[in-house]
Each structure stands twice: as structure tokens, then as C-alpha cells.
């Protein structure tokens, strides 16, 4: 507990930072993908014949919303294993 200095300290803070990065990073994509999914369900409710097209578009939209979550994951993994 006493040696709070040097490389150990950097390592420790990098782990904490990884947790914070992934934690906050997951909030936005989660809400955003929820909006996409919700509106897709609404659209299918109005035009059930176009369900395939709407589902396809929904998944593409959600995949793009996901990208910032993947950035957060990459940053977290770099902080854990590389720093």
C-alpha cells in the first residue's frame, strides 16, 4: 500500500481510467440504439409489409450508433493491456 509512486501508480490510474472510459462510453450508444430500435418498431407497426427493409435499416443504424461504444472498448483495452 505504501509505494504509491512510479510505474505502479500509472498502471493503477490506467485501470481506473479504463473503467471510467468504458462506463461513460457505453451510455450514449445504449440510448441511441434504443431510439433506433424504438422508431423501427413504430415504423413496422405502421407498415408491416416493409418489415424486412425496416429491420435491415435498423440494424445498420444501430451498428453505426455502436461505433462510439467500440471506441470506448478499444481505449479501455489499450489502457488495460498496453499502458
Amino acid at each position, binding site marked *: *500500500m505504501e*509505494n*504509491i509512486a512510479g510505474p*505502479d*501508480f500509472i*498502471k*493503477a*490510474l490506467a*485501470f*481506473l*481510467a*479504463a*473503467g*471510467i472510459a*468504458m*462506463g*461513460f*462510453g*457505453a*451510455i*450514449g*450508444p*445504449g*440510448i*441511441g*440504439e*434504443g*431510439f*433506433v*430500435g*424504438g*422508431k*423501427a*418498431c*413504430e415504423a*413496422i*407497426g*405502421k407498415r*408491416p409489409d416493409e*418489415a424486412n427493409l*425496416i*429491420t435491415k435499416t*435498423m*440494424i445498420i443504424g*444501430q*451498428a453505426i450508433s*455502436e461505433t462510439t*461504444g*467500440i471506441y*470506448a*472498448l478499444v481505449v*479501455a*483495452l489499450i489502457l*488495460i493491456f498496453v499502458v
Partner: protein
Amino acid sequence: MEFVAVASVLGAGIAIGLGAIGSAVGEGYIAMKAVEALGRQPNAGGKILRTMIIGQAITETAAIFALVMALVLLFGNNEGAEVAKGYALIAAGITIGCGTVGSGFGAGLPGGSTMEGIGRNPENSDTLTVQMVIGQAVTQTSTIFALTVSLILATLTPENTVVKIFAILGAGFAMGLGAVGPGIGDGFVAKNANTAVGRRPEQMGLLTRTMIIGQAVTETTDIYSLVVALILIFVV
């Protein structure tokens, strides 16, 4: 009082203090929509009350998980544990406290749109209740992830180094905050799916399928958080 005992009390406070936010807002939202529906269809009072109670009971799940974790943290046996154990208990409180906010609020959203649907046409109340329960159940996924990580943290005996202590706090933040977004997002998907089922109950199968696909994709960031939290707990 030694540090670990203080930390367990602090962890319990964080767990139930933050954990009560989401469910309370969600249940209030359902009740608000139920009162609105009652204003439109005063004769359907029985159906509205029944569905409201079911919806609120499921929305309560997140807060109950937080309560359970608070009790585990309060009454756990930490005799002679080292300082690192105290930080693990605080991290457990952060995980379940933050982690239940999203699911609690999210589970309220489909409940509200179900009430709207019943207010529009009380005949659909059975179909809508089934759809609501499915949507709310999937919305609880992120809370269940948070509960799992929280239980691991509460029972963990970490090695007593600064690096491990920070890694454990990091795991708590990753899973706790990471569960907020997907919980709310799942709720939005279920809300609009229920609105659509309320308008066209005959399309329920198609809408349930789309809702579950949408919710599953929304959960991915939650799974990333879980993976990062588990790496921080067990690998580093």
C-alpha cells in the same frame, strides 16, 4: 471503526441510494399514464389497475436488486479483512447503484405506452400486458449484469496492492455506468413496440421479434462493459 466496516456501510448507502432512483421514476411514469388512461376509459378501471400493478412490480425489480446488495454489504462478515476488501465493497455498491438506474427507468417506459394502448382500446389489454412483460424482462438484462459483477466484487478478496484496488474501482465504474445507457435504450425500444402493438394487435408476433432484435443489439455496449469489468477483476 476499521476501514472495511466503514467501507461496507458506504457501499450499502451508494447501492440503495442510487439504486432507488430509476425504479421510482419508472413506476411514477407508469402510474401517470395509468391515470391518463383512466381519464379516457373510466369503465376499464379494473384492467388498467391490474396492468399497472404488474408493470410496476416488474419495474421494481431493479430497486429490489439494489436493496439485496445493500443488505449483503451491510451484514456481510468482513472480520479481519484487509484494506483492499473495503474498496471492493465500495466498488460493489457503485456497480449495483449506478447499474439499476437505467433498467428501472427503462422498464417504466413500456409500462407507460401499454397504459396508453389500454386507454385507447381496453379490449387489447391482455395482448398488451404480455408484450409489456416481455419488453420489461429484456430491459432488466443490464441490471442482472450489474448484479452479477456486484456480487463478484462483494465476495472477492483482492490482493492488497494499489494497482489492484484501482482496477477494482475501475471495474465498478465500467459495469455500473455502462449499464445505464442500454437499460434506458432497451426501454425506448419496448416503449415504441408496445405503442405499435396497441395500434395493431394483430402484428404482435412481428413486432415482438423486431423488438427483441433491437433490444439485443442495444445490449452490446452492456456486454463490452461486462467484459472490461471482468478483465479488470480477474485478469489484471
